[in-house]
């Protein structure tokens, strides 16, 4: 006779999951309202309201401080997770704002599905950043993946369907590989709770020797494959270019920031908590991640140079950006407490700045694309600034930020990350990162030159007719600049969040 479960004893605390619960309800509401209303614009506003409400709950969670573990230890409410929830909600908000302009033109059906799935995907990611148990991590990962697959396929043309299928198959393989790693990890430690793993890992590492640690290393590498896929790091990046090319543009923007942020969050949390310093030492962590970082940066930047399609260009750009962030992850492996915190807060700040920068770029792309959808070629941007000055300025700001030039958020972010690397005795990584930034200037500036060149078609753009799109562009560009000019506030928040992991 099993004892009845007492809600208190396993720590069910709805407040800890309030943002997710609100967003789930909003998603359900969107799908239901879709059945009865004719004006689909309402769905967008409903979703935005849901995100805002969820955001309020997340901020409340932040101000209430660290809540610790609840739901039998499955859910971990700490500032680290909450920081990511706020970043994710911000990204979702910007993506939602720029959606109506695209959705109303390009999708004749499935508006309810579009918004509903977008919200559900965010729910999955928010859970992902705050669960501390392997099976729940997998579950959350799958929630967001499935939602994304459907979203990518939503255009229902050949390219969109193809890319959705590729994404589905490749992520299935990546997840399977990761699950295998998790199974080995479970076998080694006897628990699926990452908080309990560090002890077992440490004991195992202390017995010493590669032979003893081989299973641990294989587990770590296999798990890394799964998250390497999410953050599109080399050599697990192959899905990104075709998917970026085929999927609806706002979804690409959303995917490029949210999926990446969530992936990095779990990566940091899992490796910091489960493996502990002993585990990271055994893995020779800085070297492993450093090699991946260099590969991602270099491959992304070099291949981006030859792209003629803007969305493919941005795909390779995100691969390179993943490489920069990996520099921070590599610095995590340094034992010193100060460096550790510096590295993690650098990652957090960079991801926040990257979110607004990339969404600004995608917002401008939606605004500049011709009504029929166009070909997304760089040529098509010719004279864009004349057609829509706002979009021109926003795209320019976004691309400058992605290069890492002042006065933008990613300039500060890069300095932050590289500084952390230098402090962690990884000056060589910082150097290669800086060199890569120079290379990237070439391809990021190409669209900018086109944009401000004369000529080109003088079609009407979407920007004028959608106030929400303009709001999205303005907000994200403002965010980019704000993070670049007055970073201290955001930095202090990131540092506070990173302190969750101070060893």
């Amino acid at each position, binding site marked *: 006779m099993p004892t009845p479960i007492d809600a208190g004893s396993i720590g069910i605390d709805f407040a800890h999951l309030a943002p997710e619960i609100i967003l789930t309800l909003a998603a359900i509401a969107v799908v239901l309202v879709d059945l009865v209303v004719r004006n689909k614009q309402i769905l967008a506003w409903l979703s935005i309201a849901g995100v805002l409400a969820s955001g309020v709950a997340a901020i409340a969670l932040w101000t209430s401080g660290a809540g610790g573990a609840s739901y039998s230890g499955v859910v971990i409410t700490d500032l680290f997770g909450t920081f990511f929830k706020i970043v994710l909600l911000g990204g979702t908000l910007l993506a939602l704002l720029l959606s109506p302009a695209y959705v109303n033109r390009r999708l004749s059906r499935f508006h309810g599905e579009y918004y509903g799935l977008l919200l559900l995907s965010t729910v999955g990611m928010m859970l992902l950043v705050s669960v501390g148990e392997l099976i729940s991590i997998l579950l959350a990962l799958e929630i967001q993946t499935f939602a994304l697959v459907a979203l990518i396929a939503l255009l229902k043309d050949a390219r969109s369907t193809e890319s959705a299928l590729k994404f*589905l*198959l490749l992520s299935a*393989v990546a997840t399977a590989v990761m699950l295998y790693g998790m199974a080995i990890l479970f076998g080694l430690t006897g628990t699926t709770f990452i908080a309990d793993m560090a002890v077992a890992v440490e004991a195992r590492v202390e017995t010493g020797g*590669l032979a003893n640690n*081989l299973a641990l*290393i294989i587990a770590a*590498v296999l798990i890394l*494959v799964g998250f390497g896929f999410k953050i599109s790091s080399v050599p697990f990046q192959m899905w990104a270019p075709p998917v970026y090319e085929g999927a609806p543009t706002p979804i690409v923007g959303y995917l490029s920031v949210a999926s990446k942020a969530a992936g990095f969050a779990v990566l940091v949390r899992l490796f910091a908590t489960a493996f502990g310093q002993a585990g990271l030492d055994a893995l020779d962590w800085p070297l492993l991640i450093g090699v991946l970082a260099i590969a991602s940066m270099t491959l992304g930047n070099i291949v981006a140079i030859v792209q003629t399609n803007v969305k493919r260009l941005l795909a390779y750009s995100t691969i390179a950006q993943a490489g920069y962030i990996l520099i921070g992850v590599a610095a995590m492996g340094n034992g010193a407490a100060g460096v550790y915190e510096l590295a993690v807060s650098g990652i957090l700040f960079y991801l926040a700045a990257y979110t607004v920068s990339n969404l600004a770029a995608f917002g401008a792309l939606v605004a500049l694309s011709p009504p029929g959808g166009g070909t997304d070629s760089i040529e098509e941007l010719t004279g864009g600034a004349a057609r829509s000055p706002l979009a021109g300025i926003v795209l320019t700001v976004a691309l400058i930020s992605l290069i890492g030039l002042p006065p933008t958020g990613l300039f500060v972010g890069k300095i932050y990350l590289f500084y952390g690397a230098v402090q962690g005795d990884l000056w060589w990584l910082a150097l290669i990162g800086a060199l890569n930034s120079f290379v990237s200037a070439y391809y990021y500036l190409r669209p900018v030159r086109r944009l401000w060149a004369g000529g080109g078609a003088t079609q009407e753009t979407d920007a004028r007719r959608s106030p929400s799109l303009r709001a999205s562009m303005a907000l994200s560009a403002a965010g980019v600049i704000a993070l670049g000019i007055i970073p201290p506030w955001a930095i202090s928040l990131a540092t506070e969040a990173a302190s969750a992991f101070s060893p």
Partner: protein
Amino acid sequence: MPEAAVWIIIVAPLAAAVLNGLIIRPLLGPTTRLAAAAAISTIGLSFLLSLWALIAVWNNHEVILPLHEVLRVDEFSLRIGLLLDGLTAIMLVVVTSVSLLVQIYSHGYMSEDRGYVRYYTFMALFTASMLTLVLANNLILLFVGWELVGLCSYLLIGFWFTRPSAAAAAKKAFIITRFGDLFFLIAILGIFLLWPDDAPITFVLNDPDAPVDLLRAGGTVLTGAGLTWVCLGIMAGAAGKSAQFPLHTWLPDAMEGPTPVSALIHAATMVAAGVFLVARFLPLFDEAETARTVVALIGGFTLVFAASMGLVMTDIKRVLAYSTVSQLGYMFLALGLGALGPALFHLFNHAFFKALLFLGSGSVNHATGTFDMRFMGGLRRVMPWTYGVFLIGSLSLAGIPPFSGFWSKDEILGSAWSHGGALGTLLFILALSGAVMTAAYIFRALYMTFHGEYRGGESQESGATQNAHETHDEGHGGAPHESPRVMVAPMVVLAALAVVSWLANAPGLHWFTDMLEPLGAHAEEIHIVPAALGLAAGLLGIGIAAALYRGGAISAPSISGPLAPLARLLTRKYYLDELYEGVVVRMALYGGLWRFLSWFDSEKGIVDRAVNTFGVVGRNVGKGIRVVETGQLQTSLTVLSIGAVLIVAAYIAWGG
């Protein structure tokens, strides 16, 4: 004999498979001749070591090899070892010698095929699996070999996988043998459950140090109804692998594979795995009288049933396929009577003459480009060597002395005769009528193929291009001709073996029975009456075939009228394919299970509407797959996998 030498018997062909598949094929291309050298030399080594094993067993009856613990979970200890006794030694020699000859022959037969290296990879893997199955001294290892043999069979039947009929045949073979394997697995689980708790089960077949092992379990720890069911499960697995009724339907279709594969797997060795399995567990069957009777009856029925279908087939390989099913029936009949010696003796002889007949049919195909005997005829003039060896094989199969088939068939007839009683009489009548049909169908095939006038080969076969793949450049257009020496030589060796293999158990010598004596075999006396009846049956069959097909006394059309319904029944193979496909697959699976599952899926389903809200992908997936089929996805996955492997490899190389 040192243990390492016995292990090398298995490891050598396995190494050839690994070398061919993982190194030679990726690096040197899919048609490198090196593959044959690797496979043939390693199997040659296995053959020599098998001879050594045979001599060792001959001297000591049984070579004791140690068991090695590879896994321990609480009480359960998995110990792996090899078992070398008379039964194993005979099987080893049969498998390695036929395999060796077939692989030499294949070098000629497959020389034009683009899958040359792949072919030798699978063949070497098959040989290694079969040797594992034969040598295993642990039921678990035996089962591993058993399943690997099934897998290789699947790969080789579907070797020309672009041909729909080959793919379908491979699938059919896989599913039907797997159906039998299911019962074998249940039997293994049954052993596990029935085993008493006080002595932990080890699954070791023969463990002299333990108080009881699997082969000695019958009547001691396994008794009564439980033992009967275990034995019946083993028999079901054997029936699947050895194509016994009602699981025989896959074997004739399996002829879609390359002909040397048919010779090796579906005539000589793999199908013998079922016989071997029952022979191996005969000590258990001895304690379960009912199960043994079932084995005998299945064998007796199958031998007549399959032979009757062999009478009407027009595809020479199908005639031989039904012949194989029928001859395996003889072996099961003998095993069911507890006559281990005659059963294995027949297996031994059959392996050689049936491989010979198959290689002969391959040689004919090589010359004419077809397997359809209606388009052959008159080949004895242009292919004297092939004709000669085929004739020897046919005489042997028909049971005409002094060829080997006579002696073993006589022993089987004799054991049914001396068993007596209702069962013995019934089995004897079945075996005798089978013998008439055997002689009739094989001489019908011989006359249609080699006698009379040449009827044009593949050129007249415009509509039936099912064997198009198997034709070779030499076979196209020109007149039929003798096959190259690399193909003739193995056939001659096999023919010589088909003439002399009976000496192994010749009356008065009994080497064969002596080797099997520790396993309970005893020398058969010569029974004059059954031997004379068997010979008469063979001659009668040959006479019928000659009368019908040698332009002789009776013309075929004159009897086809009254016999038409029977002929149709036989040509349609007793409608069993239709029964399986129509009733089992279509009605039970599609009609029942599938419809039930549709409730969760189709338009009228309840769950559907809810799913549809989010299920926008489904309808376009097909479209997507078409576009994805460009190889890019495979590239992505390859990069992903290689990336992960490289990282781990880097650790092993430089980490620490």
